[in-house]
């Protein structure tokens, strides 16, 4: 550490020559991250049964006030973490994106449950196959729906992630550039939305074809 001043660069602030963060930066990071992760105001985006479990998480038995999260932010302008609890339809996707874009930095997102994370069992024409195609997600909580303990575990994982952040990394706070573009590159969206697991053996000819492929050939129009 050197505070020699003058025209010399100050490794205290800018980091040591080997690229690691300096003493002052890490202490400042610790303080900022401590403040941030101990009062995450949630933006509850509850669309389905996961929202019921989320309410249970907020209620007195599980009580997310323990983590400074009891203040639900009905407006995205005062929110820190978006908790998407439930399935999201394509019609809802631009709404979710707008809410995410309206949240000020720093902000994080938790994808709660199978439907929000991957579309779940709803591998159908109307359902977003994972909200990470719409907004960037920090923590995925599996379950259908996850128990409150599961969501709390996800919140603690988010705490862990926040504790590892640094103010010297502006890329952590990068905004999505265009509101009408998916949050991921095209090929990634294609890759993560293909049918998987049980849905591949369901009664639909595989692949996406413009012809209106059908299970039962006799249902085809004559």
């Amino acid at each position: 550490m050197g505070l020699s001043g003058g025209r010399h660069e100050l490794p205290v602030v800018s980091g040591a020559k080997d690229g690691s963060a300096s003493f002052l930066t890490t202490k400042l990071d610790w303080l900022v991250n401590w403040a941030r992760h101990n009062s995450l105001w949630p933006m509850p985006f509850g669309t389905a049964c996961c929202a019921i479990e989320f309410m249970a998480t907020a209620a007195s038995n599980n009580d997310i006030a323990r983590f400074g999260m009891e203040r639900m932010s009905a407006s995205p302008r005062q929110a820190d973490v978006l908790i998407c609890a439930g399935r999201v339809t394509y019609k809802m996707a631009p709404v979710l994106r707008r809410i995410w874009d309206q949240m000020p930095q720093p902000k994080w997102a938790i994808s709660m449950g199978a439907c929000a994370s991957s579309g779940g069992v709803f591998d159908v024409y109307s359902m977003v196959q994972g909200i990470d195609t719409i907004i960037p997600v920090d923590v995925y909580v599996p379950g259908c729906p996850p128990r409150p303990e599961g969501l709390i575990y996800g919140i603690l994982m988010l705490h862990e992630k926040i504790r590892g952040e640094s103010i010297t990394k502006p890329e952590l706070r990068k905004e999505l550039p265009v509101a009408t573009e998916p949050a991921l590159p095209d090929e990634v969206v294609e890759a993560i939305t293909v049918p998987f697991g049980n849905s591949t053996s369901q009664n639909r000819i595989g692949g996406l074809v413009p012809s209106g492929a059908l299970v039962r050939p006799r249902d085809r129009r004559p």
Partner: protein
Amino acid sequence: MSENFKDAVEGLAAGPAASDAGAGPGRAAQADASSHPTVAALREAFGDAILHHEVQAGDEHVVFIPADRNVEILRWLKEQPGQEYDFLKDVTAIDFGGGRPLQVVYQLWSIRHRQGLRVKAELPLNALEIDTVVPLWATANWLEREVYDLFGIRFRGHPDLRRILMPENYAEGHPLRKDFPLRGRFSRLEQTRRALQLDIESDYTPEELAVGGAPSLPGGPEAAGAAGRRDANRP
């Protein structure tokens, strides 16, 4: 692998069995007209226009009528003293697949006489048009929009026939038709792109948009502009 399990797995590829095995597309045997007072009166008033009458699920009386006389017969059912089916519970449609006609279903209830009646009209696939019943029951407005949205049946004379459930820019067709693929016609990427390009404010009034956000002044220039935009989207 046990034989039962093998059968079940192999059956997966075949898809669900037809639910309408038997007397043709969704039809049971002709029922006795005297079992429902309204059906007897309908036969008297309209004669051959009552194409078929059957009983489903024990006591659910279903009457088939010609599609081009639906308003006439439904108006009679609503206004004829002694019938007064003043409550339209539901308007929906059924697609049996295989090129068979679509059925438009009117589920009626008479509050005064405490009895119900289901009225069906069949539409061939090359002429999916039927007259609207919005002048009779105002609730048919949204119900017919839903049928139009999901089945593609056009209701002649409907005051505001546009999509109600699917997004306004939806271009993949009508999802509840049997020939609609389960995952839609576009790729997931294209579906995601189109969804994000949707103008989410185009379909809402300024009052609806103000919920949870900045309040807009009623009657202000901003509100007038938004209202004008909404009207401009109507066909």
